[in-house]
């Protein structure tokens, strides 16, 4: 083997170059492969936030699972929220593998959630006071999620890309489930129609925020440059937001609903939607767990975690 140095003897720079070459060539990085530290940390942050958002995302819908107005809707929303928990589980497994070399576990993820170090998506801090919100979450929040997740289907990190493939397939069903609820309401009584319009008005700003700020100047930090550099995603936040408008504005209008932004219009020359920016200071505040329902939902999760401590202890002694 003279003349060939083994991989263990490569310098960090050589490993980095090789890594970049691999992702440039469209190869997938796997859990046990060498990866730059900031790639690993970016992925851990992204995927644990995504995973925990799926889990916290069950809570706004949780209210409507027992309350769904027919057996068919009860079964539909039960299946939907179960899927979301399943996505959370799948993603946390991916994050756990990335965290292993750092000596961290799922317990750390949960503790980081409770302490506020680990954030969850802005939309899941919001109130969902009516059945209209239950429909809207399935239709537009999941619709927005499909857009951001599709953007990462070819992510350079193989385990994440594979998890997203399965998640996106299920999210399509969720969006259909949400759309079916919304259509029934939009075609229903005056009270039902008002329920949907209220929900659209209530969620509009949160939906714009969902894609994140246009660039770092808005909120001080943005991971989008790093994730694009490492081929975890392709489009920018603003491009995704525009895709969302293009897909959903016509659908909202076709149901006879309006969006609560009079300035909203498609500018033919720029080939862009023009819209009123959400209040990004409010966004920053919401994801610091100061949203309308942040404390209550974290409290519920923390209480359940504490109440079940004896069960986890029992499982540990049994194993």
């Amino acid at each position, binding site marked *: 083997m003279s003349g060939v140095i083994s991989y263990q003897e490569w310098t960090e720079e050589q490993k980095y170059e090789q890594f970049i070459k691999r992702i440039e060539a469209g190869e997938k990085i796997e859990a046990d492969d060498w990866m730059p530290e900031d790639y690993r940390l970016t992925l851990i942050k992204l995927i644990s936030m995504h995973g925990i958002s799926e889990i916290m995302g069950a809570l706004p819908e949780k209210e409507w699972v027992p309350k769904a107005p027919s*057996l068919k809707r009860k079964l539909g929303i039960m299946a939907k929220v*179960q899927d979301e928990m399943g996505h959370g589980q799948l993603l946390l497994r991916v994050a756990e593998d990335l965290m292993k070399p750092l000596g961290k576990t799922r317990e750390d993820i949960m503790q980081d959630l409770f302490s506020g170090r680990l954030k969850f998506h802005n939309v899941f801090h919001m109130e969902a006071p009516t059945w209209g919100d239950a429909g809207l979450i399935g239709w537009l929040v999941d619709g927005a999620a499909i857009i951001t997740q599709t953007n990462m289907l070819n992510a350079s990190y193989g385990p994440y890309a594979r998890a997203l493939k399965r998640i996106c397939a299920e999210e399509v069903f969720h969006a259909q489930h949400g759309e079916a609820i919304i259509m029934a309401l939009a075609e229903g*009584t005056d009270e039902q129609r008002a329920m949907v319009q209220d929900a659209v008005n209530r969620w509009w700003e949160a939906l714009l925020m969902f894609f994140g700020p246009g660039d770092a100047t808005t909120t001080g930090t943005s991971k989008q440059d790093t994730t694009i550099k490492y081929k975890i995603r392709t489009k920018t936040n603003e491009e995704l937001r525009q895709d969302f408008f293009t897909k959903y504005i016509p659908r909202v209008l076709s149901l006879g609903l309006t969006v609560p932004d009079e300035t909203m219009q498609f500018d033919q020359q720029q080939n862009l939607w023009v819209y009123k920016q959400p209040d990004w200071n409010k966004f920053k505040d919401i994801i610091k767990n100061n949203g309308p329902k942040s404390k209550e939902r974290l409290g519920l999760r923390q*209480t359940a975690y504490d109440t079940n401590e*004896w069960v986890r202890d029992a*499982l540990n002694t049994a194993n």
Partner: protein
Amino acid sequence: MNKPDNKPFDPAIKSALTALLYQLADDDFILAYRGSEWLGLAPHIEEDVAFSSISQDTMGHAAMFYQLLEDLGEGNIDSLAHGREASERKNAVLLEMVNGPGHYLSTAQYDWAFAVVRNYFYVQAKKVRMDSLKNSSYQPLADVALKVNMELYYHLLHWKTWFVQLMQAGGEARPRMEAAIKKVLGDFEGVLTLGPLGNEIAEHGLIEAEERLKQRWLFMMEPVFESVNLSVSESVFAMKNGNGRKGEHTADLDAALSTLSEVYNVDPAASW
């Protein structure tokens, strides 16, 4: 009496049949509701996924039983599920009891030991019923029982695994489980009884007699109890909080019904 081929039913058979179907439908419906309140609060995420899958199956079973009632002219499935008062419900009281202290959206401190014991004991009783119903004189019910039974195998395995594991664990688990067993058995007779028309239900061959089903439940459970060093005598089976088959219920059911029918009641005639 094989198919509901539009021939008029003997009224005595029909009342026995509907009495049985209401028990089967209401039992699954209310327990699936209690399961759905647990969503997001189970001991770990894997369990959350599994438990919500079971609750979903159970709600699906309730829908199938309500459909049989609808086919018999008792009203449409959604009004049967959402529009009946507590006094009209025939579920066992054990299944309507709250999961533990607190509200499902804010302060829930639910009791996992109670969840495991209630579900395990109930699912075994349901399994015994479905096995018997496969030979029901009412063919549409026998057909549904066959479908339900396929999913019950997994439900039973799931709850049995939890039961054995927690009974054999050290620490707080055993005393918590024993307290839950005491509570569940105190109302378990309410699950096993076929209600005021029990004799008629058996005589018409809709399902076997109550006592046979009960003995079969004990026969299935005894080896498991032995394996975890637990002795259970049927003398402790009771209906401390009332006989749900007679429409006797607790305030827990009233609260549950007002939650689960809140949206339905906004406009019961509307399409949702």
